[in-house]
């Protein structure tokens, strides 16, 4: 690029640099998404268990998410918290909201004290749904992020 780029050259330079950032964010994203989804699944599943396991499940899950975020930030050299850009933020909020009924269902399941095999089956089903929701939400977030940062794909 020249020292005094034309508007078109400048816009292209911006697009390329945003693409460099986006490539970093997407690097190893499957591994991150799978870990993130497994943590969510464990948090939801633990809500169908008695105290103090359910409380520890939430606290441990939040701690694990924080550590995962920190490790990824250090590894990639970029920090993205999910709440920007604007449309991607709504995907993150939607994912959080989608988890609430699952958490409630897990609490109700434990409250009703069903037979052990039904209880275990319920925990497995809710954890699986939470895992799928988190994985789909995470992939969707990346897609929206790419579109919003102007790098498409």
């Amino acid at each position: 690029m020249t020292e005094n780029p034309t508007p078109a050259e400048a816009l292209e330079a911006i697009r390329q640099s945003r693409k460099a950032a986006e490539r970093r964010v997407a690097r190893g994203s499957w591994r991150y998404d799978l870990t993130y989804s497994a943590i969510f699944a464990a948090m939801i599943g633990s809500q169908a268990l008695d105290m103090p396991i359910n409380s520890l499940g939430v606290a441990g899950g939040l701690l694990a998410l924080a550590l995962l975020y920190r490790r990824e930030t250090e590894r990639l050299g970029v920090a993205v918290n999910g709440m920007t850009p604007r449309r991607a933020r709504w995907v993150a909020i939607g994912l959080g909201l989608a988890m609430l009924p699952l958490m409630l269902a897990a609490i109700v399941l434990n409250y009703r004290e069903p037979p052990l095999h039904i209880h275990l089956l319920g925990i497995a089903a809710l954890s699986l749904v939470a895992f799928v929701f988190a994985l789909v939400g995470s992939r969707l977030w990346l897609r929206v992020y790419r579109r919003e940062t102007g790098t498409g794909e």
Partner: protein
Amino acid sequence: MSAAAFDPVIHAPGRLQICGILSAVEEAEFAMIRDAIAVSDSVLSKHLKQLEDAGYVKLRKQSHDGRQRTWISLAPAGRRAFAAHVAELTRLAGLAASPGPASGFVG
């Protein structure tokens, strides 16, 4: 939406790229930006100093595994100025791309 405004502090090639990267993330690490825009440490430091003096970026030092890393983010003023600059570039690029006034026929 930001009003379009050309910003000479941002328009220099290196700083344009730095702002481009920072506009896509919350924070970026010094080495990541240096590698992405292919400049030396000293050149990047100069660009960052100019952006910091203009109030456009914030620098944060963090120790990690016994070494210090610098994290850079766009300040709110920088985010606004960059959005306005991109809007102006888009407007100018549109003008350059659109056909000029008809010539050769004056009625």
